[in-house]
């Protein structure tokens, strides 16, 4: 009874503490070999040590930068291209199957082509990250343009808005929630592809750090890298959710009091 009344944050913290305790129990009792699962204390040591000496810090910065750069390029390209496609119904009809195919292609499958075209350098990784994270935002932008309220399209016609004005005044503002949702998905993909790219090309970053730690049987370093990667994913997705709430606040305010 009384447990139920605790606030969610405390309950969540209790749950996480229990999970870490379970982790500690599993390693302390020797049920799982330390080669596969280091103790929580050893992992924390590796994490703090790595951050203090700067090894992990550099790798963290490299991966985050790679992810953000590729994601930003991709977002700009996707929103521009998506507006172009979304503004015209005929173009959409012609391109939809092509986009559907491109979207269902696992982005990592283009890595072999990217390697033969761009070599094993940082440019290849950035290219793959950008290519892979274009699709969700692109499709979301097209979707957002397609879902513009028909009455608003009538308004645009009555006001004789030019195409550019339609995009900037009606299309894009209406597509913002879709675009941001797409960008959130794109960011997850960008992180995944940055990690894969680093693993394959040996570029500095958490991806190659995790790979090297596993090859050298340094389990604690491996888990420290995984935790950092989880944190990068967590912060970036929560950051975008926060932006989403702020950016769509006007919309909710405009929609909620009077549905007309």
């Amino acid at each position, binding site marked *: 009874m009384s447990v*139920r009344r605790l606030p969610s944050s405390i309950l969540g913290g209790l*749950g996480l503490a229990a999970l870490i305790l379970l982790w500690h129990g599993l390693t302390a009792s020797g049920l799982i070999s330390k080669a596969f699962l280091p103790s929580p204390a050893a992992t924390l040591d590796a994490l703090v040590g790595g951050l203090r000496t700067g090894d992990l810090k550099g790798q963290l910065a490299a991966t985050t930068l790679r992810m953000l750069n590729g994601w930003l390029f991709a977002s700009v390209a996707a929103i521009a291209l998506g507006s172009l496609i979304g503004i015209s119904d005929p173009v959409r009809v012609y391109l939809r199957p092509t986009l559907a195919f491109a979207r269902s292609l696992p982005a990592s499958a283009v890595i072999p082509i990217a390697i033969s075209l761009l070599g094993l350098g940082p440019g290849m990784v950035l290219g793959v990250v950008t290519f892979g994270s274009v699709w969700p935002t692109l499709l979301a932008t097209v979707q957002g343009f397609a879902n513009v309220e028909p009455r608003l399209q009538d308004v645009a016609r009555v006001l004789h808005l030019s195409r550019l004005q339609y995009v900037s005044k009606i299309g894009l503002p209406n597509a913002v929630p879709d675009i941001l949702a797409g960008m959130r998905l794109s960011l997850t993909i960008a992180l995944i592809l940055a990690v894969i790219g680093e693993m394959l090309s040996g570029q500095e970053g958490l991806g190659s750090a995790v790979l090297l730690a596993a090859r050298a049987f340094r389990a604690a370093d491996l888990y420290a*890298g995984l935790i950092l990667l989880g944190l990068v994913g967590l912060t970036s997705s929560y950051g975008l959710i926060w932006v989403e709430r702020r950016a769509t606040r006007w919309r909710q305010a405009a929609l909620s009091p009077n549905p007309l």
Partner: protein
Amino acid sequence: MKAWRGALVPVLLLALAELAFRARSGPSDSLAPPSQAIAALLGTLSDGSLLVGSAETLATLLGGLAIGSLAGLGAGLALGSSDLLRRLTFLSIEMLRPIPSVALLPLSLLIFGFGYGMEIAVIAFATFWPSLILTQSAVAQIEPRLLEVARLLRLSRWQRATKIVLPAAAPRLMTALRLAAGVALVVAVTAEIVSNPQGLGHDLMVAQETLRPARTLALLFWVGLIGWGKNAVLLRLERWLFAHRGDVDTRIAT
């Protein structure tokens, strides 16, 4: 209807690529014209290597998907029906979920070695989270009156799950499965490209490393075709199963 419109753009692009290749002289180590890629695709089909690779990839995909989505379904049902459990676990789930599954490949390799096991484990991890979250939200969106009926009839937990919750949430669960299948294919191919020496991803990597661009492109196209076909089949199945209920969410199309 009017399927030619959708086909026009890819056909034009391929024709352009072919022309561009014919125009320049000398062979390339990194790209090949579409005609050679098609020939390479037919070649891998006839010597059976394409089918072997596809079978390996699909088998691991199905294994991982089955484990991951069943575990996610079970956990999602449990969390969806108990508010206390949901609040106890949400923080842990939010911490674990964002770990990119591909980062687990080195760990999985350490534990399982090369082969089906390491790949299945990572696919199961990757598909567990979307199934868990989507099942949980499917359960949360069940019409409250149905749950009141269950209470009135004094159904046991098990009866409530099988007679009320699962049928009511079925369309959304199917959507969850389709999304998880998409994730599974990506992770499977990625695992094979990065480390596991089997399946289509490995074939792709070998084709690139041995400088056979036509074969690389053919395999890339084939992987895309599998992803697209799998999605189309699941989408059709979903519509066919639940069309009469009128509540299929086809907007989420991956």
